[in-house]
């Protein structure tokens, strides 16, 4: 069972609104010096999904692929430390600032270059642009079936059986292989890297590709502008001698405002 997991390095999505800033030239978030970039959380779930399939099969190879800046190596190493087997990194200015289509097309090219695969896993949505298109997009470009928002993936009799999260429940889908799945947090907490895993990952070579190895695709959409929305209005803090009294006063206030 050969699996490829696409992972992306992002600005920490837990950055509070108050310290979130935009670089107006680059039209993207400023990376703060004291908050390191992280693996996009759903991509970490995707690594976990692949490792679960590998555990269940008792064999298999999990290949980690990331397109990004030089530092994208950190998220590849992180995924290798969790249990991934091989790392592939695509770094080139031609891969920067592309739209979801070009991102999917570039990753699909790299996947063709990697060659053999049974399952590709991606996160259901990146934590920076919240685009939610790259996984399905890769599948479309490669011409393989895809299922999004997967919370469980198993392989049975040469087919994949996956559970897809719906608004009010889930559905079970049988899919022919090779296939691509985008993974949701319901798959369960990503495993921690063990010390052994971290040491093994440190020794692993990551294959580096530039646009001379993987032809860069052209974007099909442009961002015209990006801005931080302003919230108007004031919060009225309801006080009380004690916390209990504040609770009582809140109820009275809401009654006065005809809200309850």
């Amino acid at each position, binding site marked *: 069972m050969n699996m490829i997991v696409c992972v992306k390095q992002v*600005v920490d999505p837990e950055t509070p*609104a108050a310290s979130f800033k935009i670089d107006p030239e680059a039209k993207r978030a400023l990376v703060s010096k004291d908050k390191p970039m992280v693996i996009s959380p759903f991509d970490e779930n995707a690594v976990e999904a692949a490792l679960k399939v590998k555990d269940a099969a008792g064999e298999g190879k999990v290949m980690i692929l990331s397109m990004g800046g030089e530092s994208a190596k950190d998220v590849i190493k992180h995924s290798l430390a969790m249990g991934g087997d091989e790392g592939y990194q695509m770094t080139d200015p031609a891969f920067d600032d592309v739209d979801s289509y070009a991102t999917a097309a570039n990753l699909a090219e790299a996947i063709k270059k990697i060659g053999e695969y049974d399952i590709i896993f991606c996160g259901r949505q990146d934590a920076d642009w919240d685009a939610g298109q790259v996984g399905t997009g890769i599948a479309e470009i490669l011409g393989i079936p895809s299922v999004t928002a997967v919370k469980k993936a198993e392989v049975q009799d040469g087919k994949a059986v996956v559970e897809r999260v719906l608004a009010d429940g889930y559905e079970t889908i049988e899919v022919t292989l090779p*296939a691509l799945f985008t993974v949701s947090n319901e798959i369960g907490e990503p495993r921690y890297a063990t010390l052994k895993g971290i040491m093994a990952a440190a020794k692993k070579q990551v294959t580096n590709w530039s646009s001379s190895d993987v032809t860069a695709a052209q974007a099909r959409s442009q961002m015209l502008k990006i801005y931080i929305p302003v919230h108007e209005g004031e919060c009225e803090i309801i006080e009380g001698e004690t916390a209990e009294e504040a609770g009582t006063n809140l109820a009275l206030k809401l009654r006065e405002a005809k809200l309850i």
Partner: protein
Amino acid sequence: MADVMIVGEIIEGKLSASTTEILGAARKLAGDLGQNVCAVLLGSGIGDAANEAISFGADKVYTIENEMFADYTNDAYVGALEKLNAEAAPEIILMGQTSNGMDLAPRLAFRLGSAATLDCIDLTIDPDTKLMQKTKPVYGGNAVAVYVSEAKPQIATVRSKTMDPLAQDTSRSGEVVAFDPGLDSSAMRQKVVDKVKEEVEGIKLEDADVVVCGGRGVGSAEAFEELRELAKQLNGALGASRPPCDSGWVPNNIQIGLTGKMVAPTVYIGIALSGSSQHQAGMSGSKNIIAINKDAEANIFGISHYGVVGDYKKVIPAFAEKCKELLSG
């Protein structure tokens, strides 16, 4: 003439709320472009939903009715819409930011050689270029970006509760056309073998007028029971931020936020949650936001109308008690 096309969804025989909102948005765009609105409904047993689409603003409805479309799979839906696109050549295709819409839009766009933007909260036509400008939150809602694409059809999914439906008018007239995409069912690579409904009892979260929402600070499944009681008492529904769902204190389907449910109740009460941008994405449209948090610096206060700074374990029982008294009196 090119059209603004929407892909509708049917829930228990009726158009979904988000479908009526998208029809409203499509009408506006079509007005600016001087075009018509057409709706596509796929499924088996579409019945009266086609007429319903006309009453909510469609000029023409394509029905694609076949067992193959009873369950959503992107092989079948993308295949059918690819065929319909070749015939109808719409300028724009809109759909909901739903489980199916977000799966369908990118795959359809790339199949048709165009691009999509997901989870839009505003759609306008640039008067000069006549292209659709698509506004969507990014960075979990910390920022908002505007996108445009020259490739046709221009495709977008629309966040629920961000656009207004037209008032239903059953006297509107329109045309219903059955369309057969002629797909080979044996070529479908995905098969839905089971569907499990996990419904929450009581009022539906998305429709509730009052939402009581707990966060990580609530601390346990037992403590959530108290919030459930409070929600019931206020005739509302219980919601949660993501950590309580991930911890198994409450089911995943009551998660509110970017990757959960979108709510816009009259009253939203957020308890022991910080108000991350991703959570706000699902509730900032609430008319009155009330926050209880022990940290006066918590982000949630930034968008709240009323707040109490304090330990919810002390604030909430007294609050609930007083509400009970006021409601019975």
